[in-house]
């Protein structure tokens, strides 16, 4: 249990450090910035607590917000994404899947994993940019940034997954 907690904490700090130190400095076309905070909850096991996952992403979001000077934006977006993740996995994974299985490309399959990743990333990015804009009338202005960030985040996530998969193989 303690090992799991330390592991989760390690993942959180790793993700936060990557986002703050690396990804926050990537700014393509003036606005496209990868948002990788969701990685903290992306690979939590199927049987992990829903509330625990939400709290974990909330804390991760708070840390990211603290270092990105965006209080509440990442925390809100990531918490809601963690909430959606549970229902998404319920729809994608059969009920007899082992509770300690990690939803990755090996477990879900490539196409299903890509769908899982794409949907979660889309939810996270939409919420993040909506909270940042805080008004629907700016959606059209934000759309290029949203799409750019989404594409970058998806590309990086797929790269990480590819790295993970090749490493495990």
């Amino acid at each position: 249990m303690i090992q799991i907690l330390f592991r989760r904490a390690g993942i959180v700090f790793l993700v936060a450090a990557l986002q703050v130190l690396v990804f926050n400095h990537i700014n393509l076309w003036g606005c496209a910035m990868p948002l990788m905070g969701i990685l903290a909850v992306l690979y939590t096991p199927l049987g992990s607590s829903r509330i625990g996952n939400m709290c974990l992403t909330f804390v991760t979001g708070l840390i990211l917000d603290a270092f990105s000077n965006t209080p509440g934006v990442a925390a809100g977006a990531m918490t809601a994404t963690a909430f959606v993740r549970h229902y998404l996995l319920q729809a994608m994974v059969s009920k007899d899947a082992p509770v300690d299985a990690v939803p990755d490309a090996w477990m879900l399959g490539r196409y299903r994993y890509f769908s899982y990743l794409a949907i979660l990333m889309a939810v996270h990015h939409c919420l993040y940019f909506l909270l940042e804009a805080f008004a629907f009338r700016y959606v059209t202005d934000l759309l290029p940034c949203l799409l750019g960030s989404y594409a970058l985040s998806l590309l990086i996530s797929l790269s990480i997954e590819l790295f993970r998969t090749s490493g495990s193989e």
Partner: protein
Amino acid sequence: MPGIIDWINKYSHWLVLLFLEGISLVLLISFNGYQGSVWFSGANSAAGIVQQWQQEALAYLHLGSVNKELTDRNIELERELEVLRNELHELTHDSTYTERALAAKLAQLPVLPACVVGNSIAMRDNYVIIDKGAGDGVSPKMGVVCGTGVVGIVSQVTDHYAVVMSVLNGKSSISCRLRGSNYFGYLHWQGGNLLCATLDDVPRHAVVKVGDAVETSGFSNVFPPGIFVGRVIKVRDSKDGLSYQLVVHLSSDLANIRDVAVILNNDDTDIIP
């Protein structure tokens, strides 16, 4: 109570989500200037709309009392208006117009002052006897007026006296008109009330209302036009229904006349004995 606990257990993830999102929103609004300003401006707008709804609803609920207040106020203003109107009428209304007009009219005419020496009022055909006769230039079919209006028409004369067929004579018929219009009729006395006569044969399309002034029409030289006769107190249909019959309150109280004036002219029209 167990039901509530079960419900909380069942939907605890929703409660946690709302709680965490609430914290995120508080942080977002509190520590981000832009989002904070958007939130407060939006909240102010929403609060304004809600307050407007509330005010409209309350105003609707209080319409009864408002209506009563308005009614009371309206009554008060009506009274005030009536007082002011009366004051204005008293200040501007020239109540001596008729008398002045009559005096001015008589001043332009060759008149002969006379005194009433005999006057009957109790008959169906009443006459007035004046102390001026043919020796003074009086001749039959001359008009006789007093300071308040028409008295009658000279019927017979002697050297020093004249008999005047007063308005209170069933045979008297004097052409009169409504002041301000050219609708005319014939003034007759029906007997009875000494202050009331009727103006017959007024066309039905004439615009007549109670209070209108009746004056001589001037269709003959017995009476010049514009000598005040009286005022309409009632408008009714004639017996044949083809015209109006106006009940006229005579301006001259023939039961109480002393000084009269004979209008001197040589024409002999107008009277229809």
